[in-house]
């Protein structure tokens, strides 16, 4: 791996700039709206992890909901590189997590994502002392870390390899049977399964509603805009549920 100090610094600055603690796991669903990023989760073909578009102050991403939630998190962090770090960025179709050196921008986005999701100091703090030498990290520790960071196992192993703590080849076997391995330890397995299909995060709906309420767009236009994000507001549940 080449010298990536620049990307490490960018990832660290990103956390600092946005008030994310140095050892805090990034909860994407909470941070996306705070960062002003609108996100849509749609089923897509496997070789397509996501896409980012930036237009003046508007930032928009699409994430492949057929991918495991853990990979989706990595893809979101990857798209953050395009949206917040890359100069003069307009749009990019991504295949995050490949760490493909042939594509410089994508490669940098992958490493930025790895640094952002899994900061070194924090990673080290999660590894027991007796596992802090080459190829000593136990699978139980790996699962504990990926659960903490909500990251994919593959991304974590690549990160640990880059830190010199493991040889990826020796640990590659752990990239299969991931769900089972976590289940055996009693962890929730949502992270390892596809999810978020149809989810939209952001204030698109609120903005559309405001335009309708202010009489700037018609009712039909409002309904149509909401349908574009998969919300059929003509068929909303007509109940009066009360929060307890």
């Amino acid at each position, binding site marked *: 791996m080449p010298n990536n100090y620049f990307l490490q610094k960018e990832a660290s600055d990103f956390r600092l700039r946005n008030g994310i603690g140095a050892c805090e796991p990034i909860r994407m669903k909470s941070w996306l709206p705070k960062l002003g990023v609108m996100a849509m989760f749609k089923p897509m073909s496997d070789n397509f992890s996501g896409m980012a578009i930036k237009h003046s102050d508007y930032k928009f991403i699409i994430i492949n909901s057929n991918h495991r939630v853990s990979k989706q998190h990595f893809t979101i962090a990857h798209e953050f590189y395009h949206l917040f770090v890359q100069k003069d960025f307009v749009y990019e179709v991504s295949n995050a997590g490949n760490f493909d050196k042939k594509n410089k921008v994508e490669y940098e986005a992958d490493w930025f994502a790895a640094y952002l999701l899994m900061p070194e100091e924090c990673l080290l703090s999660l590894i027991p002392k007796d596992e802090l030498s080459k190829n000593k990290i136990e699978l139980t520790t790996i699962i504990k870390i990926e659960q903490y960071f909500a990251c994919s196992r593959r991304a974590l192993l690549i990160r640990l390899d880059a830190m010199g703590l493991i040889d990826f080849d020796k640990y590659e076997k752990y990239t299969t049977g991931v769900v089972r391995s976590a289940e055996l330890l009693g962890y929730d397995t949502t992270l390892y399964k596809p999810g978020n299909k149809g989810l939209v995060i952001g204030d698109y709906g609120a903005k559309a509603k405001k335009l309708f309420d202010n*009489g*700037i*767009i*018609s*009712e*039909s*236009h409002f*309904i149509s805009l909401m*349908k574009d994000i998969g919300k059929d507001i*003509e068929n909303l549940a007509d109940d009066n549920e009360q929060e307890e």
Partner: protein
Amino acid sequence: MSRKNKPDILLDADVVRHFLNGSCLHKLSAIFPNRLVMLDKVKNELCRSKSLTTPITNFISHFKIPVISFPTKTEVIREYALLIKQFGEGESACMAVARFQNHYIASSNLIDIKAYCKQYNIIYYTTMDILVIAMNKKIMTEKECDEFIKDVKAKGSKLPCDTMKEYLKTKNL
């Protein structure tokens, strides 16, 4: 009145939705006999909601409302392409077609269409205009119109008044 004597009225989605929610969709055809038409784009827009597909299809078929294909004339397509940047699909289609084919529009979406219709001398009927015509033609009573307004508003739609009296007063009618 025959279809040949007066221009066709292009039904926009909002008006259809209002009359559906006010349980008076079946009365539209009596209010404007042989004049209502619907663009395929408007039908498609309405039928994107699964719950509307059956009532809209039944309305079209029972009252023999012609569904017309969006014209292929360059000027209409160009106009539509400009309008769609700002307006919804159905209303853009109605405005573009009405401008070049001299149709009237039935649309409740005043902010969107008012200035445009004025600029190109397009005659339009809002939901409230249609209720006034329905009252004048004795197809609906004032009480029925008031019920209609109440029902439509209860479903989240916007109408300028709560009663016909209030509306007629604002219009000095």
